[in-house]
């Protein structure tokens, strides 16, 4: 269909995007790689000698590193499990014949549009605060001492906040997916005498697999880089109890001005993300082809 002329035009039109994305990938990443081999601290002006893998060595030896990788995985895993399970249940509920469905849906979806800094601050102050927070009030109501969530369960608290933001996203995608469920299949299963539970396990869940894969992939991309929620709630603390890899790199480079160590951490984060992405894209690729 396409002529030689339009083929050339197509190439010309594609070029700016490709070049821009290539530059956006290669230049900063190359610079990070380069910085990661230097002894480079903004507080110590002067020469920035080449030190090979020294930065990596110290970064890996840093006890905060292991903690932060583990925290990253717990954060991502915790939020993924909560949102996928909760999202499926929520979607099933919202697919029922309910009155005022439109408004109920809007209420459910709203948290997704709240910017991370706002949701983190609202949760931190108005819910988790051990003196004036609503949770403290409820605890007192039942005769329990108030619990300082951010001090004693920082990672759990952050998971709650982030899961609250992403649950609507998962639910919305599952709702969309449920709407394309083949009703003939459901009816056939009813005639064959399948119970509600059987129908869910053998028809609904397999139908949702594709949507689940997509939810996991998209959320992982965003969740690996959780930053604002930590910055305004726990500040990565207490100690490094809620520091993830992103936050650790931020602390090393922009708070301690150690460009070399920060860059090494950045490269580690990129590698970690790529390992996750490699598996995810394979799974997704398989799912999307079918």
């Amino acid at each position, binding site marked *: 269909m396409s002529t030689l002329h339009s083929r050339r035009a197509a190439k010309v039109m594609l070029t700016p995007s490709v070049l821009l994305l290539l530059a956006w990938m290669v230049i900063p990443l190359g610079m990070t790689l380069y910085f990661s081999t230097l002894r480079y601290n903004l507080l110590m002006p002067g020469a920035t000698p080449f030190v090979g893998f020294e930065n990596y060595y110290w970064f890996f030896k840093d006890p905060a590193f292991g903690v932060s990788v583990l925290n990253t995985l717990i954060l991502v895993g915790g939020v993924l499990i909560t949102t996928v399970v909760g999202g499926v249940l929520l979607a099933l509920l919202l697919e029922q014949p309910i009155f005022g469905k439109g408004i109920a849906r*809007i209420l459910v979806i709203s948290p997704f549009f709240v910017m991370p800094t*706002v949701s983190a601050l609202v949760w931190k102050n108005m819910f988790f605060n051990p003196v004036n927070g609503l949770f403290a009030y409820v605890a007192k109501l039942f005769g329990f001492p108030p619990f300082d969530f951010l001090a004693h369960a920082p990672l759990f608290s952050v998971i709650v906040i982030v899961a609250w933001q992403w649950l609507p996203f998962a639910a919305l995608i599952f709702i969309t997916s449920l709407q394309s469920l083949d009703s003939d299949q459901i009816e056939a299963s009813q005639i064959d005498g399948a119970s509600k539970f059987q129908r869910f396990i053998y028809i609904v869940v397999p139908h949702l697999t594709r949507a689940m894969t997509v939810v996991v992939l998209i959320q992982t991309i965003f969740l690996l880089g959780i930053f604002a929620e930590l910055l305004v709630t726990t500040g990565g603390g207490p100690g490094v109890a809620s520091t993830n890899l992103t936050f650790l*790199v931020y602390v090393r480079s922009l708070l301690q001005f150690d460009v070399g160590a920060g860059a090494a951490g950045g490269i580690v984060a990129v590698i970690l993300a790529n390992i996750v992405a490699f598996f995810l*894209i394979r799974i997704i690729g398989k799912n999307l082809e079918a």
Partner: protein
Amino acid sequence: MARQVTNRYRVLVTLAAWCVALTLSFPIIWTLLTSFKTEIEAIASPPKFFSFDWTIENYFIVQERSDYFHHFWNSVVIAIGSTLLALVIAIPAAWSMAFVPGRRTKDILMWMLSTKMMPAVGVLIPIYLLCKDFGLLDSRIALVTILMLMNLPIVIWMLFTYLKEIPGEILEAARMDGANLKNEILYVLVPMAVPGIASTLLLNVILSWNESFWTLNLTGANAAPLTAFIASYSSPEGLFYAKLSAASIMAIAPILILGWFSQKQLVRGLTFGAVK
């Protein structure tokens, strides 16, 4: 689905669904209510739900204290600017991949998606230093550029999935009738592509509005959009819940309303057309 639904069942699921919906949105509702209280009432125990002296004073205090409109305007410029710029670059690319697919189109698309996998923190230092060297720290130009680059893959993907659904035969017919490339794009393609472009625009404005890695790390007082403006309320100072609530509502209201209109596009756009 021809299923008989008893009224009792309807009432039950309605009750359940509304309970869940109100619980999930409660933090937002509570913030909205608190923004109309005085600081004393905001921390009253037991909490006051509706029986308080409603006041809009907090909104004025927030504007006066931290110049809301300045940051609001920054958000508008950054979100809309980066999205429009991305669209200008992405439309030709998506057009060419959708209508003149080559052998490597699929690879290029997957590669573009993979650039999204790069964690922002991996390039934090070079971007920060580059901005510093060029005097672009705390400038809107830097953020518009960075957010544009960050969202470009998503914009291209979204446009691609929309454009792909336009049947190629129509374009061919136009060409047969003697339309040149310019006319073909202007009179045939654009009208059919407008809905797709509009929802791409909407979704990316939302994403950029809420982006809070680069906006927090690269801005100070000048170019700070609402994400950073709110972060300045993170250190407690006396009684501040009512003011915090008012500031929060002001920061999220515009995009919350836009978001309600974009539910359908959101799914399509963020799943790259994989879930419909």
